[in-house]
């Protein structure tokens, strides 16, 4: 009974995380389409939400990586998964509050690794999996997206450079409806699967599912729904800020950037690499900017992304470990997670209230 209560809290927390993931990333997915006026904002967000939902169903490779290759399933309890999720959500809120660009995906993996380390020692962390399936692809993917985006925009200008700009823009705007849709599909595929993997890990830890099993259908449907709802409801608030911050792109750059991002995320999802979709999309956008003019790229933003990348995993891991320690103060039952959840909700409410009173716009992730 006690573990079932914790499991319900874990699943609720994981779906809340998935919702905030969609909420945070809406702007990244639709920014290029809106910036180049390929689609009106309302249509772009509804379209992205629908394709995020669909994307969650097309692969399970990333969910398998998160559930099997990051931490040892034998050493994991629902409380460990809960502490990891709190680590990820807390770090996301801290970075949101201070306007730092961060990756929800790295925060999630960092949180779970930290909590597992605190619970069962270093043997609970699968170092090879973390390095080979998470850290190295996390470095490589944004660089590949940058290079693909840069080459793609050079190819575009080579082929259509002497044509009438109006016709070319109309063509790439139409193309962006497809490439932007693929980007939303890719985002749903990679990001929704991380939540599926975490819920599967909790179900295995609770004994409700055999180790190595695929996520049950209800887990896939609920994760897909949570990220799609987050995408749909998040857009309105964040896009206002994002719309004024992104680089002014032409339609060809928007097409190249979203195409590069979609290609890298879809290929990585196929091989089970859980990426930061935010960083890959940023890489594609910067590549499409640099391919046209090197100075068009905000290298300061690129520097912030690198700093956030370096900080996210250890910081989320530390919060995950600390959260696990706090829950254990109340014993092994459900009291610890309930107390931490109540305290967390109180802190979130206080942070939101303070932010709204300050009147500062919500920073983009």
């Amino acid at each position, binding site marked *: 009974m006690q573990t079932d209560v914790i499991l319900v809290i874990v699943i609720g927390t994981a779906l809340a995380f998935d919702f905030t993931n969609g909420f945070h990333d809406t702007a990244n997915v639709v920014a290029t389409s809106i910036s180049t006026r390929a689609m009106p904002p309302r249509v772009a967000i509804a379209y992205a939400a629908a394709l995020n939902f669909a994307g969650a169903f*097309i*692969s399970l490779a990333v969910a398998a990586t998160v559930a099997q290759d990051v931490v040892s399933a034998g050493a994991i309890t629902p409380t460990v998964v809960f502490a990891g999720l709190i680590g990820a959500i807390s770090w996301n809120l801290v970075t949101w509050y201070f306007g730092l660009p961060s990756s929800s995906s790295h925060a999630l993996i960092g949180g779970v690794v930290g909590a597992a380390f605190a619970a069962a020692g270093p043997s609970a962390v699968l170092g*090879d999996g973390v*390095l080979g399936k998470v850290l190295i692809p996390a470095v490589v993917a944004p660089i590949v997206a940058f290079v693909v985006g840069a080459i793609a925009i050079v190819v575009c200008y080579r082929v*259509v450079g002497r*044509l009438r700009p109006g016709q070319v823009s109309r063509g790439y705007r139409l193309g962006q409806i497809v490439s932007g849709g693929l980007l939303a599909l890719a985002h749903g595929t990679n990001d929704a699967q991380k939540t599926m993997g975490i819920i599967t890990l909790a179900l295995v830890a609770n004994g409700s599912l055999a180790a190595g099993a695929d996520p049950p259908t209800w887990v896939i449907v609920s994760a897909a729904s949570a990220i799609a709802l987050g995408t749909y409801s998040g857009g309105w608030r964040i896009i206002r800020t994002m719309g004024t911050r992104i680089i002014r792109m032409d339609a060809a750059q928007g097409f190249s950037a979203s195409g590069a991002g979609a290609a890298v995320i879809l290929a990585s999802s196929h091989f089970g690499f859980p990426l930061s979709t935010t960083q890959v999309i940023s890489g594609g956008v910067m590549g499409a900017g640099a391919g046209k003019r090197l100075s068009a790229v905000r290298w300061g933003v690129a520097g912030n992304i690198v700093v956030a990348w370096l900080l996210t995993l250890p910081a989320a891991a530390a919060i995950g470990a600390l959260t696990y320690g706090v829950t254990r103060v109340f014993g092994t039952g459900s009291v610890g997670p309930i107390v931490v959840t109540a305290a967390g909700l109180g802190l979130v409410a206080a942070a939101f209230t303070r932010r709204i009173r300050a009147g500062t716009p919500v920073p983009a992730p």
Partner: protein
Amino acid sequence: MLATIVDTEALLKTILASFIAGVGVTLIFSVAILGASRFADLSRDGRPAAAIAFGLLGLVALLAAAVAVAVGIIVMTQK
């Protein structure tokens, strides 16, 4: 040591697939725009043979781009 930890083959395939899909589809779609644009210009200039040739080029490129996207999604679902 690192080569044994990292699934080098999967990582290289990811990079290769990203390049082929990202740059390849962009190239094909750009050719489709070129074909459509030249078709419109040449039709207006009263050169129907050249217009039809560019129109066909654009159509074939558009179909190739659509097929590439469809194949990509089908490959994604088969693992």
